[in-house]
């Protein structure tokens, strides 16, 4: 792919994600994944999961973190070198926040005044359950061989499932800090794999 068309695609992809990314960072993940992993193959599902891990351990919103990372990595993976990687990350990050600026005008004039308007409420009644679905899709789509191995590699597969269970219970039932869980599972991976 030529340099220019890759940059344009990065821009369009992240602009769309910024434009339709309702429901916060995690819900945006399924959009990022649908385009970046499934459609264009800029990253593998394993690389994508690594970005989410890095995003959770570093400051800042996940949408910005992943745009910056994907922009850089897709350019470098396509063979354009580090400087173009920086250009790619700038392009993707700009693209993901640009719709927010454009929508601000509309929102501050329209939504602020009509927040309790029945049509706005009706639309959001429909959006809320769909956003839960988006999040569910993101989780489904990450249940891959790259993230969990296969039963043909029983050692890695069952330990992966166990770590999944530990992280789920730790976060959901005991509200353990996600960073602590990531560090603990990373240490387990270092010892066991």
């Amino acid at each position, binding site marked *: 792919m030529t340099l220019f068309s890759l940059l344009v695609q990065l821009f369009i992809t992240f602009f769309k994600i910024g434009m339709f990314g309702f429901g916060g960072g995690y819900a945006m993940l399924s959009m990022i994944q649908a385009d970046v992993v499934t459609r264009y193959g800029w990253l593998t599902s394993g690389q994508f999961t690594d970005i989410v891990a890095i995003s959770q351990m570093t400051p800042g919103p996940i949408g910005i973190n992943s745009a910056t990372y994907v922009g850089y990595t897709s350019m470098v993976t396509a063979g354009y070198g580090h400087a173009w990687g920086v250009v790619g990350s700038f392009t993707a990050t700009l693209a*993901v926040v640009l719709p927010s600026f454009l929508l601000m005008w509309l929102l501050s004039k329209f939504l602020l005044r009509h927040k309790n308007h029945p049509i706005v409420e009706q639309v*959001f009644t429909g959006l809320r359950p769909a956003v839960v679905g988006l999040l569910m*899709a993101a989780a489904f789509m990450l249940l891959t061989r790259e993230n969990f191995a296969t039963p043909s590699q029983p050692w890695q597969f069952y330990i992966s499932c166990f770590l999944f269970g530990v992280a789920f219970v730790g976060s959901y039932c005991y509200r353990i800090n996600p960073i602590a869980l990531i560090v603990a599972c990373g240490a387990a991976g270092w010892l066991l794999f």
Partner: protein
Amino acid sequence: MNPYFDCFRTFFRIGLFTIGGGYAMIPLIEADVVERKHWVKKEEFLDLVAIAQSAPGVFAVNLSIFIGQRLLGTRGSVVCALGTILPSFLIILVIALFFSQFQHIAWVQSVFKGIRPAVVALIAVPVFKMARTARITRTTIWIPICCALLIALFGLSPIYVILAAGAGGYFYGRFIEPTDE
């Protein structure tokens, strides 16, 4: 102090110190913007949070844009958004530059093999938490499940799901369950 610089500095600090992103930022933004700086009143802040949440895009950036706009107009919104974005942009850039050199080392790969299942779990947890705040019941649970299947199994773009859900909510409210107004 230059008001633009003051805004930038405040949001840069917020962007720098909120690990976990998004909603983890609310209390920090509130402490700075409402209690320390008195830029917006408490009730107004809650309104802005509600709008930033319902708007698409990155929540913390939306919120900083709204507050910047309220304080210093369009230029203020650009300055506040930049402050929020810049710390994570720079940090991720540095990580991206070096991670490509690290990731082939055997022990780094082992560490990430352990981390990956945990991350998938951390994405699965908010599904259940959000299902509760979105008031999903036994009669509406089919909606998120259908959306998830369409995206994950049939490769439908999440954008169409969002558009269809918004339209569906509108038509449902308009024709099937009329409101009092």
